[in-house]
Each structure stands twice: as C-alpha cells, then as structure tokens.
C-alpha cells in the first residue's frame, strides 16, 4: 500500500526523522499493524547484531608498539608539504602575471606602432619602432626575383601576420592550456585528498 511508511522506518528507527515526516510516521505506526511489525523486526535485528560480542584484541600498548615499528622512518615534513602547497596555489597567480606582462607589452607595442603611423613619434621613431613591414624572407625572395607583384604582396602580408599575430595567439593559448592543466591536476588532487589515502604500491 502506498500510504505505508516502510521507506522511512529505518530513518525513524535511527532517530533521523524530524518535523512533519516524523509526525507522519508516528501517526501511521500507531494505526498500522504491518508497519509496527516491520518496526519491531528492525528492533529485533539490532538486538541480534548487538548480541554478537566484540573480539579480544591485543592490548592497546602492544598495538601502539606494533604500529610504531611499522611506521616509515622518513616522511615528507609538514613544512615542505606546506611550502609545496603555497607554491601550488601561487602557480595560477604566476600565470596571470605572465599573461598581464605579455598583454601589456603587446598593447604598448601596438600603441607605439599606431603613434608612429600617425607621425606622433617624430625623431624617436627609429629607436622605438622596427620596420615590421620589411619582412626578412620576403625581402630575400624579392632580391632573388623569386616573387613579384601580387604574389610578393601576399607573402609580405603572411609574414607580417606570422610575426605579429601568431606569437600573441600562441602565448595566449599556451597560458590557457597551462591554466587548464593546473585546474585539472588540482581537481584530481582534491578528489584524492577527499577520498583518503590509498595503499602505496
């Protein structure tokens, strides 16, 4: 019958029910013989389980001595462990600082190039801006007459792209990958710590 309280009887027996559910089970038990019998069978089972005596183990002192003898002599000291932990949690901060440094460098470089284009740097221009339009290998290709016209223009565009944009992309992806790896390892470590020590092989 659906209005029986069988599914809550264990929790009721263990004193784990509260509020309305407790009231519901109590009321039902007072009126239902089937559930009463089930509840009594739980009491009987507990009595039977408790009847089984505990064993006589070796004395506490001897047990402690035996454990002491088997304890490994050397273990990673807590200080070293703490230092490692600090280093571990500082890793993403380090990555963030590297990312900020690279982004700032690229931003300043872009700003200087833009200022140069608008002629704002005057005499300082040669000191601050390298001629990125003159690609090394496209110049070589031009010198040897291997490329000319539209083909040469495309080669120059590709070289400028690979020299300016690609490194930025590679940096960002590398840092993102390192950060994701750190998150993954942290997650695994936390799961392991939560699950408690496994046997060392």
């Amino acid at each position, binding site marked *: 019958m659906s209005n029986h309280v069988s599914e809550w009887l264990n929790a009721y027996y263990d004193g784990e029910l509260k509020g309305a559910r407790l009231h519901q089970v109590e009321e039902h038990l007072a009126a239902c013989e089937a559930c009463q019998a089930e509840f009594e069978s739980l009491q009987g089972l507990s009595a*039977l389980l408790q009847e089984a005596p*505990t064993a006589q183990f070796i004395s506490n002192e001897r*047990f402690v001595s035996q*454990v002491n003898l088997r304890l490994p002599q050397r273990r990673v000291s807590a200080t070293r462990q703490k230092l490692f932990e600090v280093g571990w949690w500082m890793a993403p901060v380090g990555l963030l600082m590297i990312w900020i440094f690279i982004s700032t460098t690229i931003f300043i470089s872009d700003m200087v190039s833009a200022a140069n284009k608008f002629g704002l740097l005057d005499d300082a221009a040669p000191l601050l801006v390298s001629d990125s339009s003159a690609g090394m290998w496209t110049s070589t290709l031009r010198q040897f007459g291997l490329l000319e016209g539209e083909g040469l223009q495309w080669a120059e565009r590709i070289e400028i792209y690979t020299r300016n944009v690609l490194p930025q992309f590679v940096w960002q992806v590398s840092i993102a990958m390192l950060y994701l790896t750190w998150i993954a390892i942290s997650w695994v470590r936390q799961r392991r710590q939560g699950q408690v020590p496994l046997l060392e092989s």
Partner: protein
Amino acid sequence: MVTVSTANEAQLVTQAQNGDRNAFSELVRLHAQGVLNVIYRMCGDVQLAEDAAQETFIRAWQNLSSYRPQTSLRNWLYRIAVNAGTDMLRKEKRIVPDAIEDLHLSDGQPGLESLLLQQERTVSVQKAILSLPDASRAVLVLREYEGLSYQEISSTLDIPLGSVMSRLSYARSLLKAKLEPQLSLLEAEHV
C-alpha cells in the same frame, strides 16, 4: 574507552603533522579500539582486523598532511579503516572464524547448550554481515556498531545522504532475510 578533548586532539594532530611520532602514537592509542572494532565487524576475523588496523594507521601517518583539522579525525580514520579492511579482506579471502566447530564436541556441561546457541548465532550474524556488498556493509557497521549518524556516515564514506539511507535499508532487509531463524529464536527467548 579513551576520551580526549577536541583541543588536545587537535594539538596532537598538529604535532604529528610536523613529524612528531610520539604525538602520533598518542593518537593511535586514542583511536585504536574504534578502528579495530570497525574492521572486526566488517570482516569477523581478529587477526585480519589487527593487520588492517595497523595498515590504517600507517596510511594515516603517510597521509596526515591531507587531513583537514576542521573535520573529525575519528571519522577520517574510520574511512581509511573501511578501505583498509575491504582491501585486506579481498587480498586474504579469509572468512569468519570457525570457533563454533571447536565447541561442538565438548558437551555435557550445564549451560553449554545456551552458550553454544549464542556462539552459533554470533557466527551466523558475522557470516550474514560478511555476505553483504562492501558498500552496504560499511554503512551498516558504522550505524549499528559505531552509532554514527546518517550525516556522519555520509561524510565519512563520502556518499550522499540518500545513499546512506538506501544502503542501510538494503543491508537490513538482506540481514533480516538471512537471519530469519535466528531472529525467530531470539524473539521466542524474549517472549
């Protein structure tokens, strides 16, 4: 049972985490009985329980740095104990003591029959507990013998509260079925 204040225990844990073996020995002394009981109830063999309990404390020593002081040390040790006991049981494949056979032949003493019956019941109970699936057995032992609340069992075994309820209910219904004759006998004795 040995008792110790939480502050004192926390201090011992800190010292042990810093490599103090004496402090760790004190922790072993405080929790040995509980750990031995949990494992014994799970495997029904004294020798195996002692071996697994030693293993428990060795694992605890090796991993003490991962223990978080804001959680219960006893429950943390119980969790290691449950794992160590289960591992040991699988490795040894040792089943319940057969003390009952030793008692069968020497009869003729008054009260021996009831003693024998009780021994028989004890062995049946241990066998029935041992026949439970590992997950349900651990929940049952922690609840019935150690008196842990559902919430404590949930955090000790790192399982949801719902799983604690369902595993306990499953374990009890299996035991009721397996121990039906013993339950009837016990009921008849108490009537």
